[in-house]
């Protein structure tokens, strides 16, 4: 059987763990290694998508458009993708990214708000791009509901719609039923994007593939938000062992992870105390480093901050509420100085 299409997002989701400090050289090296190893799509953008460089999410060290161009120049076969979150990025940045060489755009909304993406899908299709829909924080809604939102994206022109487990909160059955629900109604492809907060990155991705996912995501060494993503080299190796037909080179991916990415990683994302709390409480994985920083600054346990953010049903992109919750918890503790 044919393997699902693999999209590597080391240079986008990995941007969170790198605090958006990727250099041109790192991007060139990673892109080259992935291209050589036969990965067909590489995503390169600020972690929060085009125009994500901000006080809210962290400033990019290098302009993401320059990084996109760097990646495009480094590859021979792979397509370069960019992420776009309507509400943060706009068609203006999408147009710029297209002029710098992206061939795929992944358009992400909170899984209840697909109808804010119509103008962006419209432009992507008009300009001849492949357009992928991203339903973020998919654990927050039931499969049938997600299927309706996916249908909206399909009607706007999506070539594929992803179930995105932004919080790493899904269990294998939850991943599979959601993918199956989308497969049941869409004419276009279905994808799955995992986070490893509960240690289920590979497990959930395999469950999604078994349920029919046509596309899956990974990052080398799992470099990404929270406890990181499904490791590209791991999912590549396991799908190979399962007997799927594919065009990637497992050993080349192991080398890329070990010798290209690991040396510049500031830390190895793993399901540690605070990351597990993210998956358990169902909050956006990118909150991790912000909660750690503010917890330290205001002497509040990051775990408490993350659990409270889950209780308040925060969604993708609400990093500003981390300060709000931290200040409230600090006041309650009487430790605010």
């Amino acid at each position, binding site marked *: 059987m044919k393997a699902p299409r693999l999209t590597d997002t080391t240079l986008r989701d990995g941007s969170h763990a790198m605090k958006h400090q990727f250099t041109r050289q790192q991007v060139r090296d990673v892109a080259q290694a992935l291209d050589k190893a036969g990965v067909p799509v590489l995503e390169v953008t600020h972690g929060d998508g085009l*125009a994500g460089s*901000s*006080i*809210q999410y962290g*400033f*990019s*060290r290098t302009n993401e458009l320059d990084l996109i161009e760097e990646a495009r120049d480094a590859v021979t076969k792979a397509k370069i993708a960019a992420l776009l979150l*309507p*509400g*943060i990025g*706009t*068609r*203006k940045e999408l147009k710029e990214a297209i002029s710098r060489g992206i061939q795929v755009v992944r358009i992400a909304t*909170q899984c*209840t*708000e697909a*109808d*804010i993406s*119509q*103008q*962006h899908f419209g432009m992507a299709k008009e300009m001849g791009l492949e357009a992928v829909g991203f339903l973020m924080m998919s654990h*927050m809604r039931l499969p049938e509901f997600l299927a309706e939102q996916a249908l909206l994206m399909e009607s706007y022109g999506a070539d594929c719609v992803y179930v995105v487990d932004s919080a790493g909160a899904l269990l294998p059955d939850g991943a599979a039923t959601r993918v199956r629900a989308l497969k049941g109604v869409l004419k276009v492809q279905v994808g799955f994007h995992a986070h490893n907060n509960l240690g289920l990155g590979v497990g959930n991705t395999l469950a999604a593939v078994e349920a029919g996912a046509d596309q899956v995501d990974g990052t080398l060494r799992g470099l990404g938000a929270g406890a990181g993503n499904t490791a590209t080299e791991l999912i590549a190796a396991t799908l190979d062992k399962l007997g799927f037909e594919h065009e990637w080179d497992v050993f080349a991916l192991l080398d890329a992870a070990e010798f290209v990415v690991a040396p510049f990683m500031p830390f190895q994302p793993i399901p540690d105390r605070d990351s597990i709390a993210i998956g358990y409480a169902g909050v956006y994985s990118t909150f991790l480093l912000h909660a750690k920083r503010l917890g330290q600054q205001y002497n509040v346990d990051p775990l408490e901050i993350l659990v409270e953010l889950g209780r*308040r*049903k*925060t*969604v*993708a*992109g*609400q990093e*500003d*509420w981390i*300060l*709000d919750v931290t*200040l409230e918890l600090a006041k309650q503790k009487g430790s605010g100085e």
Partner: protein
Amino acid sequence: MTSASLNGKVKVAILGSGNIGSDLMFKILREPGHMELTLLSGIEPQSEGLARAQSLGINASYEGIQPILDDPDIRIVFDATSAHAHIHHAKLLRESGRIAIDLTPAARGPYVIPPVNLGAHIDEPNVNLTTCGGQATVPLVYAVSRVTPLPYAEIVSTIASLSAGPGTRQNIDEFTFTTARGLEAIGGAQHGKAIIILNPADPPILMRNTIYALLESEDVDREAIVKSVEEMVSAVRAYVPGYRLKNEPVFEVRDTPEGRRTLVVMLLEVTGAGDFLPSYAGNLDIMTASARQVGEMFANHILSQEVVS
């Protein structure tokens, strides 16, 4: 020109009988000031908004702008229809000498934020209320920039999904552009950035805004900034009672691409008055409350001119 009114009031009308028009109607009826609301006009004969207006003793029409054009005593017209419709209305209202207060994104006249720049546009025939995020955040950006140079301001508006109508959803980029422009042109930031997030939590969240002001240097007069911000919050609260900062402004020193800078963070919450729309919809309330305030200031201006002449 006809006299404003015998009873020292200026006649006003609302175009658009949807949720925004209805909430504005309730606000003006509750606190008319120097305005007399004489008409609510829509285009749907079966509109609930029109029925509501009638039950409150306000003339209601489904003939759109025509009854306004037919009544020369109406001097101020609030337009709560759509950008598309307002482009048509703006021309007719201007030709017939009426003042248009535009709540749509059409922007045929200058953007106004009542406590910041309305005074400069009080003789304009058409003013626009920019966006809900702009009404909420531009005053606080201005409060900082009037104290110290402000190279960069960034705002995040988070609103309840239920309070975001199809107009906002289909044009979310325009929210971003218009609000960012407002931060620069009216707020006084050299560069502005706006982010909007829809949150579907149930029960719905109150409208929240975070304002980040990145100052030129590390060395700033924090007390003067806090005082200026507090004064501005009071000024807005005078017409938007549910406008409040959750905390005193927070000062941090951050590393930025331009070096170490002082960052001021303001966490703002806007609770709606619940006149017609639910109180969580602070984003809609601040639009109708600002519109009423702009209307009142125009009405005062008209009356003062007539006394002089």
